[in-house]
């Protein structure tokens, strides 16, 4: 049986890295006493499937984890999925809150392959939002945004424009939706092509938050890997 969790990452804990979060979640699942399916072999590990990495220092309202549990005996369910958000949140550090849990089809495409784009909020620090809005409009008006990126030590020419699906300024925040495939764009790369380039807000006292991850179906319809249903404990735990 495969379970998918949707969780947040905010506050002080946002300074942990992707691998740290993986370890924290693995330990919490073990502490919850879940009957995790283990890998075979010399050094068995639980079968966990992580979604797209979130840069250290960025926050998120929509992170995901899939994990496999052994099926229950007879009619007894192996895992009380509805109880998982509260149970796991209590075992996780403040700032990582499990919002939703659901059983998914184990044949479903992995998170890393399925997610096609992400929505982001980037705070504007030390700039006039109206000016930033104008610059954003300039970017959107362009047909191509050529950039040179380094891949395996080699410079690679690329066009960022197709990956910018949405870009607007709301209040003092940039809201944007960026593709994750075939060629993903990171928020810092987007800010770097502004004129003049803008630094990563988190180094200036600002915030970067991933608000949603999206899966685009063949017909173009977009859905999230799991819908968020804010749990009552989320507020109290946020810090």
């Amino acid at each position, binding site marked *: 049986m495969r379970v998918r969790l949707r969780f947040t990452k905010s506050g002080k804990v946002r300074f942990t890295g992707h691998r740290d979060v993986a370890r924290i979640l693995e330990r919490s699942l073990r502490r919850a006493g879940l009957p995790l399916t283990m890998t075979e072999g010399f050094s068995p590990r639980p079968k966990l499937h992580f979604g797209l990495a979130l840069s250290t*220092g960025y926050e998120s309202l929509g992170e995901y984890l899939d994990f496999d549990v052994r099926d229950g005996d007879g009619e007894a369910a192996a895992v009380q999925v509805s109880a998982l958000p509260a149970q796991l949140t209590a075992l996780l550090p403040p700032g990582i809150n499990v919002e939703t849990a659901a059983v998914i089809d184990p044949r479903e495409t992995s998170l890393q392959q399925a997610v096609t784009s992400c929505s982001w909020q980037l705070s504007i620090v030390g700039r006039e939002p109206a000016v930033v809005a104008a610059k954003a409009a300039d970017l959107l008006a362009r047909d191509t945004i050529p950039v040179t990126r380094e891949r395996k030590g080699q410079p690679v020419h690329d066009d960022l424009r197709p990956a910018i699906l949405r870009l607007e300024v709301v209040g003092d925040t940039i809201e944007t939706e960026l593709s994750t495939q075939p060629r993903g764009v990171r928020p810092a790369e987007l800010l770097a092509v502004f004129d003049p380039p803008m630094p990563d807000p*988190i180094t200036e006292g600002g915030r970067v938050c991933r608000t949603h991850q999206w899966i685009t179906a063949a017909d173009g319809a977009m859905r999230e890997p799991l819908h968020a249903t804010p749990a009552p404990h989320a507020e109290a735990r946020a810090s």
Partner: protein
Amino acid sequence: MTDVWPQLESLLAKVQKPARYIGLEDGSVRPEHGAGKVAWLLVYPDTYEIGLPNQGLQILYEILNERPDAVAERTYAPWVDLEAELRAHGLPLFSVDTHRAAADFDVLAFNLSAELVYTNVLNCIDLAGAPVRAADRGPEHPLVCAGGHCTYNPEPLADFLDFVVLGDGEEVVSEITDVVRAWKTSGRNGDRSRPAVLRELASIPGVYVPSMYDVRYEGDKLVSVTPRFDGVPERVEKRTIADLAEWPYPKQQLVPLTEVVHDRLNVEVFRGCTRGCRFCQAGMITRPVRERPLEQVRTMVDAGLRRTGYDEVALTSLSTADFSDIEPLVRDIIADPVNGQPTSVSLPSLRVDAFTVGIATEIQKGRRSGLTFAPEAGSWRMRQVINKLIREDDLYGAVGSAYSQGWRRVKLYFLTGLPTETDIDTLGIADLARNCIEIGREHAKNPSVTVSVGGFVPKPFTPFQWFGQNTVSELHRKIGLLRDSVRKQRGVQLKWHDPKATAIEGLASRGDRRLGAVIEDVWRHGGTFQEWSERFDLDLWTDAMARHGLDLDWYVYRHRTEDEVLPWDHLSAGLHKDFLWQDWRDALAEVGLEDCRWTPCYDCGACTGYSIEHIVASATPPAGGSQGTGQDLQFVELRSRPRAGTPVEVGA
């Protein structure tokens, strides 16, 4: 209070591994400070990854936070990138628990586990906003103290520390808290308040206040270290907790959010060791052996695994295979998976002689962890000198059982530069490694042996405290011999510790107060994190020595004589100085000494002096192997023991 978090956030976005600085570990607390509470900032003067797992610091953290009149928070040395940001933005050292400025604490307490962190101690005091020299501190500054193994010779840091604690900290932290609380509630006011509280602290057994002592030299020679006031002890004795069972700490081991060394549950199964290895300071200063009851160990392992979610437990001590009930303990941990998953057991400090096939089999039922043996020396003669009486057959037996149980890689740890060492002894290391590979081939296709060689540093309160350390060039030569010898040997990897760093460890290990100026000089020239090879700089040290007219050769490479006053003679680890001297003579005569936990007392002083005893569940040594473990040592010449209880004059 000063919460630095709001200003810290944007800085953390610019530094490596910011998770080092966020706290939030499971098991951590956010204690409520208050006027009547003594606030301790426990400082590990190295990076978070190295310091977080330190059990001593975690034990004190819990004991202090359990007291209604104390709070304890933690901090670790900020890496150079964050230090630069803090200094550029005028921010101080802060606690990771509540991100409170260091100046908000009454006591800065350093854990000193290694000599090369000494410059980091100064850096942390400075970042805390206090003058680095104790004499320059006023009522507004916290008291700065240190504990840990290096404090058995605190003299190089004497100028910077207000007080030093010798031995086990479990009881004495509370006694110190009582004195500091009175100081705090009096408002720390008046000119005399700081000297007065220090004098009061000096009267607590186990507490050493360096500023209360006069140090006299004649030429190069140290002549005396004597108390300046009545009530200040001539000799400060270490503290020893009589029974580990009364201290089942840590109860809430910290579970870090980011990767650290020893990232697993740690349960201390006993403290102290009487194997009597002559190079080993830990074994000398932590006597006697105090085992934790088997049932308590089981409870701590089980509760700890459930609470932390770890799937690995380390049973810690100085020689875990000597724990009386080690076999049933390991068997039960492996047989009874906690959290629905197999638990892996790691046994640090494994002596080869007690490593039976039984334990190997038990461990490998869980996930297999690394296996390190420490023969320490390459020849039987050399091992007699250092009193590590394991025979080659013991090592081969242990290695053979490891390979036959499925291990493919074994690590062997050796010292070089030991007293009386010849090239035959050094090259014996290569022979042992080659023979281990041969044994491995009987069981595996490509067995490997990693040989790790460290330069020997003589330590205070060991029989080798009089020995002149090998020079940098001599250690390089010996490592070169070994490298040439194993170069063509398939499967043997040689690793070694930088002899230049070994020299400076030796300098700090047996130095006197005059080194304070050198440590300050190195720190002022940017020499922090000297225990990190990429940051270590020998020139900083030799230049500073030259500037202060001090001679590295004299401090490090010179043999001491019996009548020499040693910089730590006014401190005591319980060991009679004449016991250590006799053991040094025995070493030179290649005479071994048995483990006293299973044989009659030879009155080293650690038990008799403090009216305490070994606490060992088994009256008989573990089966198999050598030295007090069932081996017939008749062929070995052993020293005849003085009768227990014979009064022996302490020291010289």
